């Protein structure tokens, strides 16, 4: 019962926050709304027994990434809402319409609802999958395919560092 209430509260909150992010004109408020969504999603992760990911979500997303966003917004002095005024166009209407079509297609196809359940699996039962230990053992298990992409990710991050330095350093 607690799960149900928690889910609905968090679900509604996250959707509201995400819509707020899209609707509001002030980038700072958008960022804050996004932080709200991230936090709700983190809480949902806990409901899904993914504690480690939930923690990472809070630390990396809500913490680091969003701070970076806010930092850039402030750095570029884009806080004032009037700076980027929307002008009348059909774009938002068409976009929303097509987005809703997309959602309806996803839902009506039944793809998200008709799920195959593994024999004997009981998703509602808590399983200690998402602890740091569980994640760590799996991540570095040579029988699992994670090791290689994990190493490849390090190159990706290196590229990102090099790229960010090139793009942002002052002297060419």
């Amino acid at each position, binding site marked *: 019962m607690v799960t149900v209430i928690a889910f609905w509260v968090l679900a509604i909150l996250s959707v509201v926050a995400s819509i707020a992010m899209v609707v509001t004109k002030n980038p700072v408020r958008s960022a804050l709304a996004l932080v709200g969504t991230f936090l709700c999603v983190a809480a949902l992760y806990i409901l899904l027994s993914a504690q480690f990911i939930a923690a990472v979500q809070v630390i990396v997303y809500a913490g680091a990434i969003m701070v970076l966003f806010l930092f850039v917004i402030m750095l570029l002095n884009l806080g004032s809402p009037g700076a980027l005024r929307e002008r009348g166009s059909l774009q938002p209407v068409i976009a929303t319409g097509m987005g809703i079509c997309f959602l309806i297609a996803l839902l009506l196809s039944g793809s998200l609802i008709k*799920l195959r359940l593994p024999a004997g699996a009981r998703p509602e039962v808590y399983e200690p999958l998402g602890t740091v230990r569980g994640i760590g053992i799996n991540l570095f298990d040579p029988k699992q*395919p994670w090791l*290689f992409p994990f190493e*490849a990710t390090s190159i990706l991050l290196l590229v990102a560092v090099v790229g960010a330095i090139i793009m942002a350093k002052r002297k*060419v």
Partner: protein
Amino acid sequence: MVGMSDNLAAILPAIIVMVTGFIVLLGDSCLPAWRNNGKAFNPAVTFVGIAVALFFDMTRMGAKSATAFSGAVVDDPFSRISILLLGVAAILAVLLSTTYLENKKLHHGEYYVLILFSLFGAMLMAGSNDLITLFVSIETLSVALYVLAGFARTEERSEEAALKYFLLGAFAAGFLLYGIALVYGGSYGLSHTGQATTNLTEIGAGLAGSGLGGVTVMFGIGLALMFVGFAFKAALVPFHMWTPDVYQGSPTSVTAYMAALTKIAIFTVILRILSVLTPISSVWLMTAQLLAILTMFGGNILAVTQDNVKRMLAYSSIAHAGYIMAGVVAVGAAEGKFHDLAISSTMFYLFAYTLMTIGSFGVLIWLSRRGRDCQTLGDLKGLVKRDPIGAYTMLVFMLSLGGIPPTMGFMGKLMIFNVLLSAGLTPLALCLGFASIISVYYYLRVVWMMCFMEPDRETITEHATESGGTLFAIGVTVVLSLFFGLAPYLAQTLLAPATSILVR
């Protein structure tokens, strides 16, 4: 149980490229002697690194196909051929880069680092056997290319290109990731272990065994959304709109590089995934055909009225993505020996496309060696008189792009046309014919400008930098385009191993 040395051997070319990337990065930032001679050292080391990687790639050509890293990576003739093409493209791009970068005062070591790391990402894409490896490697390639697109930081256009590419690329990556999630969710019951999986080998085996009954609709939607990510990278209509802006704005050497590299890498991925999906080809064949037709006509029609050569070539590359996509459709539809033929024909066209694209952008780079970017049709006026080398090589590339014999482009189109007919896709084949007739209009315009107009701007007196690397790269592409156009069988033999895609 595969030993670690086998695992590493399977990705040896990629590792060599990566290590070269580290060497250049460290050398350029830590060694003063290196830094002072960066103009020579960086490209030289890059060149040697890629060449060594290609050498090892070639030596492994006959080795047995295998998966490595518990199925995360696959090493089969198809990926080796693809890596070969990628390496060739990268080497040509490096050759084209040096003088151009010097002229634009962009000669930083990071350029080569990014080239090498993006090549690393592309090579991993070619060998990905798991959707998550695929996602990470696509992002490695993309992130490096975003930065490369904006490498000319003082130029607004370059920055604009980077921003547009980045925003839309991230958007597409969102779809790709969501698609992977849904594929993961829908794949339950396919794997022999009875678990949901993103491993292509397992998905392929499962689909071959159970067909459409083994998966849910979620799997289909996931595939569709994943394909959105691929279609963005491959610039299929209507995911193409970033292409002209990004190709135009990026430094031309980067444009040449990414036009070739991205297409090779992503079509390798598409071919691999669709060959996995062959048992359920009825699900995606219609949509893929539609995209191919849209892309062929969209790219060509948009190119017709284009006055900026870089943009025109961008649209033409879109059209060529459509032709390649038609080949991919044939791979899905053809059976028996024509299935193999469709794969090798598509690879042949990819190879031809690589040479033509790098070559034609290379000519633009060659013409830009007087310090001013050559971009518009007007810049090509009377080229035959001003710069016969540029004019004649461009002529060959235009003929090749237009599919006129005896060039590689013609042979590639002929092969695609042929496999389409063999696979019973006559309407698509006719579309290809008509689309390529449209394309003759604008390729001819370039020829017309070059050969039959008087130069209106006398640039011949301006100082032109000696550019041996550029000349060499253009020369290689011209000679290969003509040689394989005259003797396509040799290229077919060379690419023949590509037909064995390790699926199950």
